[in-house]
């Protein structure tokens, strides 16, 4: 936990609107709820502080339209 607090800088999440088709996958499977959908269904970063920088949204985006900058290193994330 100490490591997490040391590195607590809100990440920079880029959503490339021109390629996004608003399918909702990134929002539905965000483990911390940092993302949300607006009234048109498009994703936006609701709470950047909540982002765990896991990069799952980026992995699962079928349109390569979302990017999380300064992701943590694999070891720091623990688990898998």
């Amino acid at each position, binding site marked *: 936990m100490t490591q997490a607090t040391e590195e607590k800088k809100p990440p920079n999440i880029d959503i490339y609107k021109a390629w996004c088709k608003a*399918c909702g996958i990134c929002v539905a499977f965000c483990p911390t709820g940092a993302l949300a959908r607006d009234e048109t269904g498009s994703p936006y970063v609701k709470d950047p502080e909540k982002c765990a920088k896991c990069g799952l949204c980026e992995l699962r985006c*079928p349109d390569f339209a979302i990017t999380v900058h300064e992701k943590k290193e694999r070891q720091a994330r623990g688990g898998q």
Partner: protein
Amino acid sequence: MEEFTKLIHKYLRHDKKFPHVWCPGCGIGIMLGALIRAIDRIGYEKDEVVLVSGIGCSGRLPVYVDFNTLHTTHGRALTFATGIKLAKPGLKVIVVMGDGDAVAIGGNHFIHAARRNIDLTAIILNNSVYGMTGGQYSPTTPFGMRSTTTMYTNIEHAFKISELAVTAGAAFVGRGTVYHAKLLDGLMEKAFLKQGFSVVEVIAHCHTQYGKLNRLGGPVEMLQWQRDHAVTVESAARMKPEEMEDKFLIGVLADRDLPVYTEQYERIRQRAKAGQGKDA
């Protein structure tokens, strides 16, 4: 753009029309990401890789990536790939097919490519339906489900592609889902590195046709279904058979070393060239 997205952009053909042609939330996009990440991790040059596809939604995939690509006729992707591999054994030949392409129209090619153990990688996107042509049932449509040609429910039983490949003699068989994107990355990497016929079955969803007709919801609900019904080979070993009833296995289903067709063929060529005769 950073890390994953950055490297994906390295391999995309930016003169093509983006966003791509697939429906919002389609699993083919997620599979394409996994494919590119696996190729990048191994470090193949763009010119070293040949991507061959047949017809269908998945047939559009090679259009978007900057490798040697070939878009062939329906069900015949494996035959074109066999020709490429025999003519240029140094190339890494990857075949991307849909379920209709691989086990319906190209079913015979598939089992014989596996039997021959020719050094190809077949990536089969199994979305249980013919998506592009209008949602007709395919050999992987589960029993009792609806499609536009089985409106009174499907009375046939679905092919299990991975199990078929294991029986037919493929050297490597793995099954993943588009929900488990990280596992899929790893499976593809293992399949590419394997000498011999390697198969990766990718369980995906077609919410536009199959999902809509069977009221399974959108891409999110169908991904949740994959999450809830996929069991890794490791966890399945600890589960009772009755718990596995409505589940399917993901992970490496077969990994074995068998004589590879391309190597054997080369040996015969060398022997014939040296004039050693048939008995040597």
